[in-house]
């Protein structure tokens, strides 16, 4: 599969990928009240990654998402676990939910709490996973220095 990334396709993908990423974030924030959530959000972002790969292979993926997937995985796990400990330090039980009213532009005022942070952790892990898998399984060019 020695495809050259076509610039037009690549731009097209990026153009499509952007809204997908935004949509995926929306799913994370809205998930508590509507269908969605961290998993769905992460998976949508993952689909964006797959699209990027199909546009130009691992190189394009790396250019569009210049983060190591292991960093996402680690960060996601740490955030999710820390949420649990955060509740502990707040005087609640482990993973017990606490809330904060915050307002975010566009989406509006939401009751954000530890559960949201937890969902963000989930999101990061799922995104990191698709990124890592696509990079690992999609690797096939001699000149690429694949890194997790």
């Amino acid at each position, binding site marked *: 599969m020695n495809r050259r990334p076509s610039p037009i396709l690549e731009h097209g993908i990026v153009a499509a990928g952007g809204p997908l990423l935004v949509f995926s974030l929306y799913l994370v924030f809205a998930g508590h009240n509507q269908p969605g959530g961290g998993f769905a959000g992460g998976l949508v972002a993952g689909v964006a990654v797959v699209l990027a790969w199909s546009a130009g292979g691992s190189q394009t993926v790396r250019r569009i998402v210049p983060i190591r997937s292991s960093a996402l995985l680690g960060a996601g796990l740490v955030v999710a676990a820390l949420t649990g400990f955060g509740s502990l330090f707040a005087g609640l039980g482990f993973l017990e939910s606490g809330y904060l009213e915050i307002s975010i532009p566009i989406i509006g005022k939401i009751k954000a709490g530890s559960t949201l942070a937890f969902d963000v952790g989930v999101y990061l892990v799922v995104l990191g996973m698709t990124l890592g898998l696509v990079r*690992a399984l999609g690797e096939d060019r001699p000149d690429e220095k694949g890194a997790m």
Partner: protein
Amino acid sequence: MPYLLLLHAALALGLVAARRRMGRWAFVVAAAGPAAVLGWVVAMAGDVLNGMPYEEIVEWVPSLDLVLSFRVDPYALLFLLVVGVAGTAIFLYAVRYFGSDPRVAAFAGTMTAFAGAMVGLVSVDNLLAVFVFWELTTITSYLLIGYFDHLKEARSAALHAALVTGAGGLAMLGGLVLLGTEAGSLRISEIVANPPAASPTVSLAWALVLIGAATKSAQFPFHGWLPGAMAAPTPASAFLHSATMVKAGIFLVGRLAPAAVASTGWWRGSVLTIGFVTMVVGGWRALRQNDLKLMLAFGTVSQLGFLFLLLGAGSAELLFGGLALLAAHTLFKAALFMVVGAIDHEAGTRDLRRLSGLRRSMPAVFWSAAAAAASMAAVPLTYGFVAKEAAFDGLLGTGLVPIMAAAVASILTVAYTGRFLFGAFGAHLEGHEPAGQTAHTPRNSLLWAPLVLAGTGLVLGFFPALIKPLVAQATAGAYGVEGAGKLVVWPGLVPALGWSLVSLSVGSLLVWRKEILDRATDAVGLVAVRFPTADGSFRRSVAGLLRFADRSSGLIQNGSLPTYVAIITLVAVLLPSTSLLGGVAGFDLPPTGEILELILGVLVAVLAVAIVFTRRRFAAVILLGGVGYGIAGLYALLGGPDLALTLLLVETLIIALFALVLRHLPAAFTRPRTPQALRALVAVLVAVFVFGGGLLTGAARMDAPVSDRYLQDSIPEGGGANVVNVILVDFRGFDTLGEITVLVAATLGAAGLVLPIIRRKENAT
């Protein structure tokens, strides 16, 4: 007493740890163990013989009745004396027997550990504690027999001994626990005082104990391991395989016989039979050996048979004779082993056809051997004679058959004793390369130990009163009978003397006129050749076991993954069905569902069936994705929008990942080579099980599900209207934490699998 054991343990560990600095002088240090035992015996003898047994309790696991309850009465004291005397002599002898090698110190350490185990064995009153020390002697014996571990014979002999005595030990453990349960106590003294009533269970217990004792004391038909154990260095042979360890079984039957006789009808007869057969077989085979050490080993088997029946038969008279003979046996047999060791050491061979004229070159050795041999053959004026008189005296009360059998064995004993003495110290046989020409008088330290032991035998022959109180007290302690026998230099003209003299003279005749013996052996040989030896049977059964293990595990463990999965699924389906089938009768079928559900269901079914028949990998993947989408549709229909959304996304990604992998693989499946009918059958069973199980369990529901709580609390407590999401991140957020961990690990694993190999290929090109 606990300190005595700790001393042995400390010595053993210390010697092993400091082996590089010790060399053979380790044995001097090690001798402190048996010497301390000897000292302890002397110090306690007064009290113990005056009816005040030493008692002390060390608890280990009292809730399992595993208690080291020490109890040293005169009976135990006699055995302790044996361990102490033989141990001290043999350890000091061993200093000169070995050269300088760090391994010798480790050997000395193991010997010390054994000595400690033996001390513990004879001085505890709790059957489980006996077993603990019993097995300790087994494993130390295993290590000692295998000392010359570069020799295959030594390794297999060690295994033989360990397996036979180990098997006996485990049978005995079962017996002991059973006995303890039936008798209500694991303390020997209490069992003897209150034997369990006769019953099949009790009989089984006694039989198992008897098997254990018989294996340990090398009784027929388990005796085969003992000659093999001669592969051990001579000090170990002398100490373990003649003086002490092999007496453990005898010790135990002697202890338990009063109770066993009281609660079974067959004990005495079995013990007598086993003992006599062992005596005769052992004596016979001793006569046939050319290796001096093996001759002694079979001789030991024979003597052990005698001791076994004397101590185990359960009568005071026999016990008296047996204990007297036990002391005699220790003295002469240990001395003779050391003599053989000295001969081997100096002449370089133990083959009596090649040895010659050692009487002149090794006079001191000769005189020790002569004195010990005289005692073994029960020549008058030796202690062996005194003891055997007591034993014959007891046997006379048992009947004519026993005394005749004992006489036959005694004749054989005299015969092989003569062969030993004249073979080793007389001229070598014609037609064999002579050896021993270079023999020189061994260093003194190799000599004095056998001399002292053999000399003691002579001294006791004149002054049997020195040991009589111990023997008499031990007998009295077991049966409450005073004066069960007598130990005297000259018994007077009694029947026992007659039997002794007959044995001696016929035996001497056999030594003198060898051709009689040869003719007899030829005649017996015609029959004996048809019987397997114990050693041969053992080897055949091990080979058989290995074959059986190969076959059976080859059958079960065939290495094929589909087989494993088939077995697992079959068991998973069939085992629960045994119970579930009982509930099939009578319940209502649930509703069929909506029409849309039916359409989607049929779609999914068609796609799934198509997967089976497609031959292209990619098509199969697409179909799998189709199934996934169909199920997502079903989920949406059943009220799970989150599920449907997630499944759609997951299926999309899975297809993408499949596509990434399939780039590298050929497009078509290879055809399966094996028949598919069985697979289909398993598949159908699984499907039926899932369907039926689902119906049954669904119909069994009695209560409302817990999720009603979620519906109530989701908004007020969980702060979210999407109950499923609230469950995922809040109510059951912990599941989710685990789940993302799975994702992290799976990704790392997948990347770790694929990236290195791609890199390697890149480097290669």
